[in-house]
């Protein structure tokens, strides 16, 4: 904590916000109850209700009743930084998979947690990561043993509820040799006039031939039309492809937050490892988004792929900022980057800021970027066929983001598509 107090706030991103009074935020807001819940029956009914409204079933029976077995999703629900419930733990344990809150993991598997936590994002990494390391209270922990393909999607839902809350959860996922896991993260927050801060840290580690697919659908409250209220989303996400031929893929759909400042990155350490970043960032109203990725090529024959789709409407600003670097030893490193921006209306802005650093002449980096506007002619064409102005916009936008939506698991893709339409409501006509 004292290390964090001594750091200056970062000012280089293309976002502006009044200085945050960090004394004003409760660093740890436990849902009001005594002790951690032992079972769902002890969970505050109001919380269960809140999750139900979000369409996230927390009771395994409900999940089992409604959904085909292969579509089951194990859920860890985190409310104001505290993990309230994790489903399917027993069944996952049979496969050797550990999926629980970090606080439980510290109790039950302290050696594993200590070995990996902070090994990808060190305490001193950046301003917000340091803050997180100092005050984090909980989060999700996932461990996939050697050779195991996780039998279901794992998922964490975050929700910020309390006033003046900062959410500082920490997620750690370890995929041992030859294992695979797909992990989904969903975020929501209700409407509040004050700003709330989300400064999470996510660390991923893949060993030889392992793969982690990490998907996020983020719908934090963006603030009202005049930019009042909303979440400040300053998150540090990093994956470390430690093993040979391992793979980490980040897919994100960002529709909410007043300010987003987020660069999920991959360190391509293992020979032949692969990093992917697929992103849809929607901004409307007064939202400010500064997001992108870092692909750090350290190992031989490492490859990375970046597909970013930015959609700006209203008076919002949407910036893609990406770094692709190749170390001296990263011979034959390859990257392909494609950044497309779509503008709706003429008061918004889209910016693309690619940084490229290569210390080896054998690296091949390709970069493509386009900026387009939804044309009046396209809108008129769709409307002539009977679609309303909003339906037409949603259809054209969905076409624009299709390459990224396809990366999401089915159920999430449908949800994400709806979310994108909702967040663009009122941007045309």
């Amino acid at each position: 904590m004292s290390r964090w107090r001594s750091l200056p706030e970062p000012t280089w991103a293309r976002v502006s916000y009044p200085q945050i009074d960090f004394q004003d935020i409760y660093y740890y807001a436990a849902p009001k109850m005594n002790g951690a819940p032992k079972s769902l029956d002890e969970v505050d009914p109001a919380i269960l209700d809140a999750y139900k409204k979000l369409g996230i079933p927390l009771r395994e029976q409900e999940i089992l009743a409604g959904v085909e077995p292969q579509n089951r999703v194990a859920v860890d629900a985190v409310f104001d930084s505290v993990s309230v419930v994790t489903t399917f733990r027993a069944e996952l344990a049979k496969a050797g998979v550990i999926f629980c809150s970090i606080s439980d993991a510290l109790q039950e598997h302290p050696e594993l947690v200590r070995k990996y936590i902070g090994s990808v994002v060190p305490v001193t990494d950046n301003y917000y990561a340091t803050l997180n390391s100092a005050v984090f209270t909980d989060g999700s922990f996932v461990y996939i043993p050697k050779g195991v393909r996780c039998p279901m999607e794992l998922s964490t839902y975050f929700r910020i509820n309390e006033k003046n809350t900062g959410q500082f959860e920490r997620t750690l996922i370890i995929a041992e040799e030859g294992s695979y896991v797909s992990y989904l993260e969903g975020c929501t927050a209700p409407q509040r006039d004050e700003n709330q801060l989300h400064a999470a840290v996510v660390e991923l580690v893949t060993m030889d031939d392992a793969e982690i697919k990490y998907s996020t659908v983020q719908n934090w409250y963006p603030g009202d039309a005049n930019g009042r209220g909303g979440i400040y989303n300053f998150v540090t996400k990093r994956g470390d492809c430690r093993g040979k031929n391992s793979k980490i893929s980040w897919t994100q759909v960002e529709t909410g937050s007043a300010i987003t400042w987020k660069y999920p990155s991959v360190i391509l350490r293992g020979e032949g490892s692969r990093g992917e970043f697929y992103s849809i960032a929607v901004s409307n109203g007064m939202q400010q988004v500064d997001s992108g990725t870092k692909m750090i090529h350290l190992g031989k024959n490492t490859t990375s792929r970046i597909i970013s789709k930015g959609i700006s409407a209203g008076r919002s600003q949407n910036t893609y900022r990406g770094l692709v670097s190749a170390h001296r030893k990263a011979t034959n490193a390859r990257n392909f980057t494609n950044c497309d921006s779509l503008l709706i209306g003429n008061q918004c802005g889209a910016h693309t800021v690619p940084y490229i650093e290569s210390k080896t002449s054998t690296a091949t980096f390709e970069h493509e970027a386009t900026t387009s506007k939804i044309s009046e002619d396209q809108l008129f064409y769709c409307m002539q066929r009977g679609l309303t102005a909003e339906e037409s916009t949603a259809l054209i936008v969905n076409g624009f983001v299709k390459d990224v939506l396809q990366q999401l698991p089915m159920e999430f893709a449908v949800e994400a598509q709806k979310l994108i339409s909702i967040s663009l409501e009122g941007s045309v006509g």
Partner: protein
Amino acid sequence: MLEINNLHVKIAGEDKVILRSLTLKVAKGEVAAIMGPNGSGKSTLSYVIAGKPDYEVMDGEVLLDGVNILEMAPDERAAAGLFLAFQYPMEIPGVATMTFLKAAMNAQRKQRGQAELTTPEFIKRVNAAADLLGIPKDMLRRPLNVGFSGGEKKRMEILQMTLLEPKMSVMDETDSGLDIDALKIVAEGVNARRDPEHAFLVITHYQRLLDYIKPDTVHVMSRGRIVKTGGPELALELEANGYRDYQSAA
């Protein structure tokens, strides 16, 4: 069915007047053709009927079944049964043709207070219409009009017309760029829908199309107004003599 009275139209935000005192009627069950030189305002007329925002109506009215549609949004006009086959159909990247068709059909049904089509029913209708127009199935999976040839785009317009079942169809140079086989197919698409309940306004430069779609009426348009109206023989006369006689008359 369609009645246009004394229509004056200019480009929105400019002084350029394109249509002047234009009057035209298309009765129920009628197929009317409009011919006229380049730049005479044919496409503009079709756009104004469909409600494109680039134009400003200074005077006059456009009635569909007796209702003035000029105050209606383009999607409301579509739901009321108006269809425009575009001279230059738009490309919609990333949106599969199937997805677009379903969205359009259901949007119109919604506006009319009808239930959504079930997926099997939708597929059945699309397949039937595509077979009729010789449109291969794999084209329906591609993004709408993206990379389609000129003729394929025109065929896709007719597919949409067939599926949306409009009562009033305006076709802007649908025959341009079509090979003979496609031309026959498009004509069949129109002829199959020709009955006392449906009407067509066909804009064309070529008598050839009118060999396959026999018009009831032919209008000659020049400099933003209808300068002559006659039967099918008028098209033959234009083919022989060109527009010379009419340009001075306007």
